[in-house]
């Protein structure tokens, strides 16, 4: 049973953060200035793989604008650690420094950093640094990486960064005996986040107090603080990391360890000057963590009724010099296997290192890839069997869709049914048929087009927080662990701890509140309420477009009965917010929001407790609104006001903290429909209609949710039609400007309709399921399936299975089938 929940606090028209952004009074890092600031520039490698023979700073040093320089040798002298890497899931440690030491491993890798007086002179001076290289053979493809003739990291014995597999049943046998088998080579090319604001950092070092002040474009100030501390061997409390407004991140500003904040800190420390650095867009393309670049050689088998019996796949990923975050391909694998009953599975994953920039969690971080692989395969299978693609999904939904997750998202069936209804599916099929009949009659003359429909589906769900830290095994042996199934079939390979009750705030074994470590499944909040009824929310989340400054204010307003205008939300400051994880991975509203609600409820608990003591009214009948308490039962004495209660308590305000951990993260499910027309002579695609049916549970702010879906979908459309980081055979990046790496403009974008179904999550305190990446996760397959549907009209058998489906690629696909 699904319902779109009524809001108890209606969403405001317009967001709290809008005004400053609309009037040009936002504070993005590059907007900030410090008196006497100097400007940092980076000298970057021209080679994908080369030994550094010599770095010549002599010409540079004679310039009046020159202040200081750093090379990799300086980092070694300072004892700076190697670039941070997570070991979750396990990956081979890729030992490299923020400035290359001895060797460069990708075009654009920082080789030296310089500090100059005037910004306008920066590029002139960068050009004056001479670097002698001895080029080495570059590993620029997965094929070359596999061969292992050249090692990207000499202390590895091959170029494999991670291995993993998932196996249950007997997939090979099942495929051999199944009546319906499809095979495909699927993939998504290397792509990037491309936030509109390039990376930027501004640092200042206070010599007197040995304190670093750091403004940086990061999705987690606490994450950056931790990285700087560990890489510089300086205690965390020495860093004050801040961000105010940020122009998008999409994963590229989330927890990757980039060189520039560290280098700027070093320069500030050495010179006593504030140090500013902002990436050019070219640098952004060269250095920002990239995503996708995953390929799946897949075989899927079904029985006569179209029920899945087996899936066998090899997944390969090009991770460049590998990155700080490394879960993406395993998330793909997990996503691919999550939504349907598949009794026999054999999936092997290999992640390869190459001489390209590092990988990172680009919007979706593996889920778009995994969803694409399974959803494309399902549609290919539907064609083979000759049934409607949505019908095939219906027949195969896992019995408890999103089998992990205590919240019980709307059954996938319902999303699919809603998609059929809201899209007026039968009418669309009729329209498609008319368009295609005309093409069949008239041919491609007069610029006739063909039409195609594509669907894609992902059940909601998430991961049990208990298992996430359980990685084991050396990746070298190929048994990298992700929580594995006990072999009972797709339904049961995760055990959920909580059976519908959200976990309370963390208490330690003595039952006292302690400071727990936070991780992906948790978030921090502190809420204060003063005697006038004004509330302040301090959150570990870090909104940069997602609107939490408004939605968290709505939550607090709802819980505390405080008018929205009297709630302010503070984030992005390690001095004001002692702990936090940050905003990425579609989790802020779910985890951060729950922490806010939890803290508010603790405040109410304190206040209601006092009121109960004073008036004798049972706390459970009390509520608060606009600084006044009320009771649902009759009371003899009038209830005190908030101010009076606080006076009685001897306080001017009440506050509470929450380190809230979810027992299971809930992600929204989605069913998408994409309608395209294809001009077969040019290979040009136009998306003419796009529908999303989603279930993100309770929507704090429906407009914000829909905005996230619009943007997420367009991200998938761009990735399906236009976007590709292209290299030559020397490893030079050919697409390093916005002219060559094409993201969609307003002209290329369709109207996107969003429909909601849902049941609230019971794992989160605000009923929310994460939605920020959902549009992107589900979108690729919808677009690619639509294109292939149209292709089939032009040339049966023509297929394009690797995104982006550019006009030339589509044209070639048609020509290949003669």
């Amino acid at each position: 049973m699904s319902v779109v929940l009524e809001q108890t606090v209606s969403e405001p028209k317009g967001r709290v953060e809008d005004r400053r952004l609309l009037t040009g009074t936002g504070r993005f890092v590059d907007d900030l200035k410090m008196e006497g600031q100097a400007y940092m520039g980076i000298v970057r490698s021209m080679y994908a793989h080369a030994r550094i023979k010599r770095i010549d700073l002599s010409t540079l040093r004679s310039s009046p604008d020159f202040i200081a320089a750093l090379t990799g040798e300086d980092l070694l002298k300072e004892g700076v650690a190697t670039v941070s890497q997570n070991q979750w899931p396990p990956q081979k440690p890729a030992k490299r420094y923020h400035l290359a030491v001895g060797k460069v491993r990708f075009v654009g890798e920082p080789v030296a950093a310089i500090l100059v007086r005037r910004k306008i002179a920066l590029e002139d001076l960068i050009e004056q640094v001479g670097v002698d290289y001895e080029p080495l053979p570059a590993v620029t493809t997965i094929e070359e990486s596999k061969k292992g003739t050249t090692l990207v990291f000499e202390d590895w014995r091959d170029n494999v960064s991670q291995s993993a597999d998932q196996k249950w049943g007997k997939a090979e046998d099942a495929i051999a005996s199944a009546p319906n088998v499809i095979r495909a080579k699927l993939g998504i090319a290397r792509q990037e986040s491309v936030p509109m604001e390039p990376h930027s950092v501004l640092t200042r070092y206070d010599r007197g107090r040995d304190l670093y002040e750091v403004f940086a474009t990061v999705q987690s100030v606490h994450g950056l603080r931790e990285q700087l501390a560990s890489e510089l061997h300086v205690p965390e409390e020495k860093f004050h990391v801040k961000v105010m407004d940020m122009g998008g991140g999409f994963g590229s500003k989330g927890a990757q360890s980039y060189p520039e904040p560290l280098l700027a800190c070093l320069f500030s420390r050495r010179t006593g000057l504030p140090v500013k650095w902002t990436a050019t867009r070219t640098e952004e393309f060269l250095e920002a963590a990239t995503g996708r670049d995953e390929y799946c050689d897949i075989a899927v088998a079904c029985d006569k009724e179209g029920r899945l019996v087996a899936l066998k796949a090899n997944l390969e990923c090009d991770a460049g010099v590998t990155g700080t975050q490394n879960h993406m391909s395993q998330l793909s694998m997990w996503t691919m296997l999550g939504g349907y009953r598949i009794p026999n599975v054999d999936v092997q994953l290999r992640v390869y290192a190459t001489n390209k920039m590092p990988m990172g969690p680009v919007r979706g971080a593996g889920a778009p890839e995994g969803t694409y692989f399974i959803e494309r395969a399902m549609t290919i299978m539907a064609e083979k069997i000759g049934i409607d693609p949505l019908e095939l999904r219906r027949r195969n939904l896992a019995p408890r869709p999103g089998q992990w997750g205590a919240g019980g998202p709307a059954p996938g069936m319902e999303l699919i049914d809603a998609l059929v209804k809201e899209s007026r599916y039968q009418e669309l099929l009729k329209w498609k048929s008319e368009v295609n009949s005309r093409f069949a009659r008239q041919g491609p003359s007069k610029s006739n087009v063909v039409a195609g429909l594509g669907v894609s589906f992902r059940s909601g769900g998430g991961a049990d927080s208990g298992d996430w830290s359980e990685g084991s095994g050396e990746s070298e042996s190929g048994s990298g662990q992700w929580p594995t199934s006990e072999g009972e079939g797709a339904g049961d390979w995760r055990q959920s701890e909580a059976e519908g009750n959200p976990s309370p705030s963390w208490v330690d074994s003595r039952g006292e509140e302690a400071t727990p470590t936070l991780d992906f499944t948790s978030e921090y909040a502190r809420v204060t309420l003063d005697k006038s009824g004004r509330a302040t929310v301090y959150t570990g989340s870090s909104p940069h477009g997602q609107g939490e400054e408004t939605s968290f204010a709505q939550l607090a307003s709802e819980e505390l009965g405080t008018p929205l205008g009297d709630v302010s939300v503070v984030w992005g400051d390690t001095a004001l917010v002692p702990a936090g994880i940050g905003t990425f991975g579609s989790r802020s509203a779910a985890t951060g929001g729950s922490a806010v609600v939890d803290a508010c409820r603790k405040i109410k608990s304190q206040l209601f407790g006092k009121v109960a003591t004073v008036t004798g009214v049972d706390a459970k009948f009390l509520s608060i609104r606009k600084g006044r308490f009320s009771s649902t039962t009759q009371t003899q004495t009038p209830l005190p006001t908030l101010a009076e209660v606080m006076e009685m308590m001897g306080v001017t305000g009440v506050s509470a903290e929450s380190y809230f951990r979810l027992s299971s993260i809930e992600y929204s499910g989605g069913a998408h429909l994409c309608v395209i027309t294809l001009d077969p002579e040019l290979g040009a695609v136009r998306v003419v209609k796009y529908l999303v049916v989603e279930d993100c549970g309770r929507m704090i702010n429906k407009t914000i949710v829909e905005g996230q879906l619009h943007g997420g979908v367009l991200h998938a459309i761009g990735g399906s039609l236009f976007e590709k980081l292209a290299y030559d055979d020397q490893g030079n990046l050919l697409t390093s400007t916005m002219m060559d790496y094409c993201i969609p403009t307003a002209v290329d974008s369709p109207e996107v309709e969003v429909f909601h179904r849902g049941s609230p999550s019971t794992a989160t305190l605000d009923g929310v399921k994460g939605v920020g990446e959902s549009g992107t996760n589900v979108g690729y397959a919808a677009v690619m399936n639509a294109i292939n549907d149209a292709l089939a009209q032009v040339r049966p058998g023509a297929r394009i299975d690797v995104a982006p489906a550019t006009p030339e690629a589509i044209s070639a696909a048609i020509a290949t089938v003669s």
Partner: protein
Amino acid sequence: MSGKNVRAKADGLTEVSMKINGRAYRGEVEPRTLLVYFLRDELNLTGTHVGCDTGHCGACTVVMDGKAVKSCMVLAVRAKGAEILTVEGLAHDDRLHPVQVAFTENHGLQCGFCTPGLLLSTLTLLQRNPHPTEEEIRRGIEGNLCRCTGYVNVVRSIRAAADSMAKQEVRGRS
């Protein structure tokens, strides 16, 4: 404004003056100083943003002598004597311009980085074409890239702005 031969040496600074948001500004720039950096770094008008290197993203859009231009593709010296409108000049006495109101009411912005440029492209679009079709709207903002919104609510915001500006026009006339 012709009449005087202007020379500025590569190594030297030259004086520029222009009117921005109705106020006179002056400063000293190198010939190669881009207008966007003059605005941001010399004049502290940081509402206009830099998003790319090649004049594609449009985050730097301002109105110069009545036309939307990318201020990263204009030399500050070229803007001598020009009348410029930046995002900081849209609101008056704390009252938001109808275009700004339309964008907030229709969630036409998320991270806000592309927004200033978009607002100014919208303004000039609507000044020239008060009742644009959807296609004309999309074409009018083709030079303003956004990665957050998918443009869906941007188009809605511009339609709403067109409606409200038309209403104000009518009110103004009657």
